[in-house]
């Protein structure tokens, strides 16, 4: 038998391997973390495939066509006409409108629609031609990648949240409740290596989940992201993972009982999913907007939306990155302090 004297890095390696071993033994947990975004994207893709008709179709008409809303004479029970809309073509591309009508620079009237609304766009085009026979009217199909990918940022954030809370946090909570951390606390080893190993392991899983989700989005929805976008999305997802792993580890340090900790993880998960500006618009009420500003998921989702949907950031990217960095530092600092310290120290 031969044993080498481990350095801090070797200790870190041992802990990292131990953490992977844990994931290997709890296949269900990490499989859930990795496959959840794919399942959600598949459901979304299926719903998109069905082309469920919307009960009300919004048609935006540019301000330089003030007479068109009345001339079209569309039934207002199924068509909601929005007059004097600024850049209706852009709004269609961003999936904020289904049909947009504006005058192009060459004087022609352009009817914008997404690919999935192409027949409807064609009907509206013919309607415009009938109302003003002398006009040149053409139809333009907007690329609707953004519409397809609308929920991808939120799905990614939920997936990273699950990895941070249900994998990193739950593992630590289980180890605390079974007292298996005790031996590390009394051995003369640097305890930061344990926390760092947890971060590395879950960061790898988070990156894998992100790559799988992007692949699934590409296959199921035909999303096309540039290499620059992919790289930035991976970097941002690593930052979001770090914040959520920190949150999971910090919550696990607060509660000794594993069952109670799991309950808290589910509650935190729901809180972030509902109020974290993921699926429900937080700006609707002042209180939800304020709550969203405190939650890390809002900043993470905004960064991902800006990168994936390419439609600009609601919050300054520097502010979001800074918030996530400070949040992660606070969470990991708290956890390292709490874990490294024993009673009375």
């Amino acid at each position, binding site marked *: 038998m031969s044993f080498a004297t481990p350095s801090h890095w070797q200790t870190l390696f041992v802990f990292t391997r131990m953490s992977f071993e844990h994931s290997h033994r709890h296949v269900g947990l990490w499989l859930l973390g990795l496959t959840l975004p794919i399942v959600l994207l598949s459901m979304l893709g299926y719903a998109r495939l069905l082309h469920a008709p919307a009960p009300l179709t919004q048609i935006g008409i540019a301000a330089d066509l003030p007479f068109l809303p009345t001339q079209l004479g569309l039934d207002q029970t199924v068509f909601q006409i929005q007059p004097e809309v600024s850049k209706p073509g852009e709004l269609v591309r961003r999936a904020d409108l289904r049909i947009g009508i504006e005058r192009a620079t060459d004087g022609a009237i352009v009817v914008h629609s997404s690919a999935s609304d192409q027949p409807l766009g064609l009907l509206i085009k013919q309607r415009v031609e009938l109302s003003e026979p002398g006009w040149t009217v053409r139809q333009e199909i907007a690329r609707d990648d953004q519409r397809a990918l609308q929920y991808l940022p939120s799905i990614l954030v939920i997936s990273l949240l699950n990895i941070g809370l249900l994998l990193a946090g739950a593992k630590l909570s289980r180890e605390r409740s079974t007292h298996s951390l005790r*031996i590390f606390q009394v051995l003369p080893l640097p305890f930061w290596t344990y926390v760092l190993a947890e971060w590395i392991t879950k960061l790898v899983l988070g990156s894998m989940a992100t790559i799988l989700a992007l692949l699934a989005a590409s296959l199921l929805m035909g999303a096309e992201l540039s290499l620059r976008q992919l790289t930035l999305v991976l970097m941002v997802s690593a930052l979001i993972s770090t914040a959520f792993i920190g949150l999971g580890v910090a919550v696990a340090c607060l509660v000794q009982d594993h069952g109670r900790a799991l309950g808290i993880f589910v509650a935190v998960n729901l809180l972030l999913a509902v109020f974290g500006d993921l699926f429900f618009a937080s700006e609707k009420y002042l209180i939800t907007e304020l709550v969203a500003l405190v939650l890390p998921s809002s900043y993470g989702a905004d960064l991902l939306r800006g990168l994936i949907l390419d439609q600009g950031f609601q919050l300054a990217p520097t502010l979001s990155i800074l918030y996530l960095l400070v949040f992660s530092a606070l969470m990991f600092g708290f956890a390292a302090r709490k874990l490294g310290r024993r009673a009375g120290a």
Partner: protein
Amino acid sequence: MANSYLVAVDGVRLSGDPHAALSFQCQPGELIGLLGPPGSGKSALLDVLDGLAQPVSGSVEICGTHPARMSNPQKRDVGFVFQQCALPVHMRVRQMLSLLWGMVPSDDSDLNLIDQLGLSDALDCVVGDLSAALRQCLSVYLALHGRRRVWIMDEPTAALNHSQRRLIWDCMLSKQRRHGIGGVIASSNGLEVAALCQRVYWMDRGRIIGEAAADMLLGHRSMSKSGAFASDYARPQQAIQRDTQQQLEAA
């Protein structure tokens, strides 16, 4: 508290009972045994000595330092065995030993002990897959490895068979003689305490109700006792002597 003591327990109360203050000191080379029924406070006191719990009042020191504030070099001097299995179940035995060997300088006899305890055949096993006995062997090995000054052990051989227990006792006695190791061992096994310890405290409901030299357990000497608990103490003394004699005969 004087720094010459390896372990010093000063007025430690584990409950709100104002009369249940525990105080004793352990000299270098002296092993103190804590005997008592389940729930008597042995493990609670050892948790305080491990630095993992805080007493209601009082203080403890190991080698002159509060156990929770020990630096890494000081931690190398102390070997802990916990009653509840404290081993990381997802780590391999080899990894665990490798970590330990890097942190605590080894003693000549340590490698032989790995073989003798049967751990050499389980080096590539994950700790969670080990039998309860092997897990305890590993746990005790972690505390015995190297040149420690203090042992704090809670039921160190409870899950072991007689030959494994004997092996560990021999190793402990040999190391204690060579390095003058002291410390505290909590056990419900009178024979273990008699074999290893120089002094024994009988605990009940968080209080020390008697003190004796270890050979008293074998009936060779009379036990000194506190007058206040004399009536409580007579039965435990006889019971321990009887149990210990029976265990000796069985061995």
